[in-house]
């Protein structure tokens, strides 16, 4: 059955023409010359005042990258990227690293104010804002400010830009960097390893529950730049952290490249909750401009009973190529992936997840909702695999797609691989096999099945989205209401 009017209206509200964050800010920038070479990498490393081992690591990655081919398996089409036409480093003049709020260029603060990002600690403390969030603001290639650092420090939580962490906590960075996404993991991750300029670093020590939400806000501002950030989050034994990421960019006719790497590590009994509201500029309605979002995100449930949960709300980018994954290495570890991906105009989305079950009694859950409108293409691509020794691995996958109009496409490409007889995998793309108990509960209270299913799935997503601060959740909130009516597997 076709989509209901309510849904069509809601999707229209977030159409590519309605992009609100397309403004550009005139700020004097310090840029590296265009192009990629060993010299540029040395320059980036020098600007960041990095230790020698880091530079070697970057150069090694660069050498590997030169031998690699761009992946072509994803269901996305775009003209060939000229990697020598990009500035690999661009920072607001005078910024050598994050400092206290008072020293930050007021122009920059205005940008974040306009975007609705709370950077002013005083206001937040004074109760103007309801929720308390620590923010790391990344502007083009550098982190300009990180809030609430002191307060977090008292709890023992390290939250700072990764360049700062490399100087202040080199041992921690060295121990974990590249252990989840190796240097030569894939074409874009390798490029990122060579040229990443900034990103966030989080370390939550043993037994600590991070006292507030942590977040990073990425903004691409400068023309012809690429943003290559790297985020590394470590939750030590028994720790808990919730982290969220937001991103926007100005409206431009050229395509810009964003190739990030995110690594999560959860040790015994630790839990990491990672949420993304991806709202890069999607291009105009003729498909001109927009961000190429080629991102590698992976979490490693390294310890027993650890848990990693990915939540993503994808509305932006001209092209999205992104598969947040979980390696379930520790026994009894758990991975979750909740995704809402909306494509409109000429957007192309190829996104999904991988759940790699290695340990015993591991479980994972995938809920993916793709909504395609305009002339866009929306693909779910996922992999669930159980290793020979992954006894009692358990997975539940559900992916629904909704098409609005007859010029768009929705595709599902799941890979299911079981090498253990005790593994129990269920892949559902029909709307009938949601938790039978919950469904039965709703039905016997007189709620029709379609409404009950929508209620359960939306309730599920809502649970996570409600924990996002309001500023990030505006787009997400609109999507929650979208019903599952007329959805196809």
């Amino acid at each position: 059955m076709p989509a209901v009017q309510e849904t069509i209206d809601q999707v229209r509200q977030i159409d590519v023409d309605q992009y609100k964050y397309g403004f550009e800010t005139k700020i004097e920038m310090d840029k590296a010359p265009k192009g990629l070479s060993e010299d540029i990498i040395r320059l980036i490393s020098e600007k960041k005042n990095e230790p020698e081992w880091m530079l070697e690591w970057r150069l090694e990655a660069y050498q590997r990258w030169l031998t690699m081919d761009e992946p072509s398996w994803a269901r996305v089409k775009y003209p060939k990227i000229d990697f020598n036409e990009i500035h690999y480093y661009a920072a607001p003049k005078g910024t050598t690293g994050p400092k206290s709020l008072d020293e930050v260029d007021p122009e920059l603060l205005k940008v974040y104010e306009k975007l609705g990002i709370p950077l002013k600690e005083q206001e937040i403390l004074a109760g103007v804002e309801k929720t308390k969030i620590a923010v790391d603001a990344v502007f083009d290639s550098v982190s300009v400010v990180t809030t609430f650092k002191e307060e977090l420090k008292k709890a023992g939580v390290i939250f700072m830009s990764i360049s700062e962490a490399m100087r202040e906590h080199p041992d921690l960075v060295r121990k974990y960097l590249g252990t989840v996404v190796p240097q030569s993991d894939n074409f874009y991750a390798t490029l990122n390893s060579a040229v990443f300029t900034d990103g966030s670093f989080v370390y939550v020590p043993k037994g600590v529950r991070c006292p507030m939400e942590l977040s990073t806000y990425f903004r691409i501002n400068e023309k012809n730049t690429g943003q290559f950030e790297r985020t590394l989050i470590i939750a030590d034994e028994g720790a808990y952290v919730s982290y969220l990421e937001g991103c926007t960019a100005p409206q431009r006719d050229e395509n810009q490249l964003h190739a990030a790497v995110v690594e999560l590590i959860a040790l015994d009994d630790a839990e990491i909750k990672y949420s993304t509201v991806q709202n890069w500029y999607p291009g105009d309605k003729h498909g001109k401009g927009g961000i190429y979002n080629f991102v590698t995100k992976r979490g490693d449930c390294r310890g027993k009973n650890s848990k990693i949960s990915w939540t993503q709300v994808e509305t932006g980018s001209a092209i999205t190529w992104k598969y947040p994954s979980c390696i379930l290495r520790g026994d009894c570890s758990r991975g979750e992936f909740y995704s809402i991906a909306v494509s409109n105009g000429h957007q192309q989305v190829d996104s999904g997840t991988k759940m790699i079950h290695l340990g015993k009694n591991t479980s994972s859950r995938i809920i993916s909702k793709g909504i395609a409108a305009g002339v866009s293409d929306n693909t779910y691509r996922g992999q669930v695999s159980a290793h020979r020794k992954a006894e009692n691995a358990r997975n539940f996958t559900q992916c629904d797609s909704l098409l609005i109009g007859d010029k768009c496409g929705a595709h599902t490409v799941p890979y299911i691989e079981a090498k253990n007889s005790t593994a129990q995998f269920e892949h559902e793309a029909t709307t009938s096999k949601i938790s039978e108990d919950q469904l039965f509960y709703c039905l016997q209270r007189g709620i029709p099945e379609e409404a009950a299913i929508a209620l359960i799935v939306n309730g599920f997503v809502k649970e996570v989205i409600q924990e996002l601060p309001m500023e990030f959740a505006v787009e997400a909130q609109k999507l929650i209401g979208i019903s599952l009516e007329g959805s196809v597997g």
Partner: protein
Amino acid sequence: MNMQQAIKMTAAETALVDAYTAQIGDLPGDGAVLSLRDTLVHELKTAGLPTRRVESWHYTDLRTLLRAVPSADPSAFADRVEPIVAGATVLSVRNGEADLKSLPEGLTARSYTESLLDGSAVAGLAVLGSDDAIGRINGGLVRGGLEIAVAEGVELEAPLEIQVAQSHGQAHTRFPVSFGPGSKATVLERHLSTNGDASFVSSVTDLTLAEGADVIWIILQQQGASDTHLGQIRFDLGKDAKLHVFVINAGGKLVRQELHGRASGEGSDLTLRGINLLGGESHTDVTFTLSHDVPHTTSSEIIRNVIFDRAKGVFQGKILVAQDAQKTDAKMSCNTLLLSDDADFSAKPELEIFADDVQCGHGATVIDIDHTQLFYLLSRGIPENKARAMLVNAFVAEIVEELEDDEALVEALEGVISAWLEKHA
């Protein structure tokens, strides 16, 4: 990577090319057929057998898995065996020579060798795409088969059994079959081997259903434990045509059964049922693609796999819904019982949808035997091995029971399944 670069040929690739070279001058065909054969073998030589890098062969790396190919031996065809359903009309193929006997009214058949010789086969010999390795091997080496036609309005009373029995060596056969408007038939395509020597079989069946045709097509693959079977079914469904394809794999060491079809007439319906019984060290791959090209077409697929020992099972299913194909209703499900920790199963159920008013869904499960069901039987005094056998049997038998209109056929197929399970469970 430069695709033009010559690859180092594996032993199997060399054997296939050698088989072709050795038979030049002997393989039937007119000028056009022979030149197409040349092209296909040349492509095989340059591209090689597909590896896991070719997406449609992701889980069946033919280049690695196909270690050896026995040499062609024209005397390798075995004698005809009794049909599995008593009273069935049997057509057998021996060394490409169709063994034609008196056929029921409305059914005509001629040897495919004749179509190769007079050139009428050339259009059908083309491959489906650059990844169509089965079409390529078969097109290069095919010697014979049967060209069958069921006339308009004819309803065949007894099932038709097409037998391809092989003792060793190679067999490459083709079966273009057309069903006239309003015709009705049940056909069993049976591949079996008569002894334990390795054989290599490729077979392509091309089904065309005209308006309102109603066909049950059963593929019963019972090759020997060291055989390679590469099968392909192509089908095209006309207006209101109904095709019920049944695939039973109960043999072979390396098996790939492809099904590629189009629902090109409004109101057409495809039902696919698959039972894959896997044991030993075998590798069995069922790959299915269906394109819904026009509005108001329906399809339903259910695949059941039972995997023992060190066997590997693969199911790839892809449903495409074209932009105009509104009101398509497609459901695909794949359920697997993984009964050994050394066994292995991979599935890739894909949907590619371009129309917005459709109902499409797919489901896939991989599980062990339900412990509560097992406990129930055990608590009633049934020994464990017997209880397990009962549950496994029930898992696949319910699919066969859908053919309830023909009791003798259901009984025969259940017999094949039970016999296999008794031997392996």
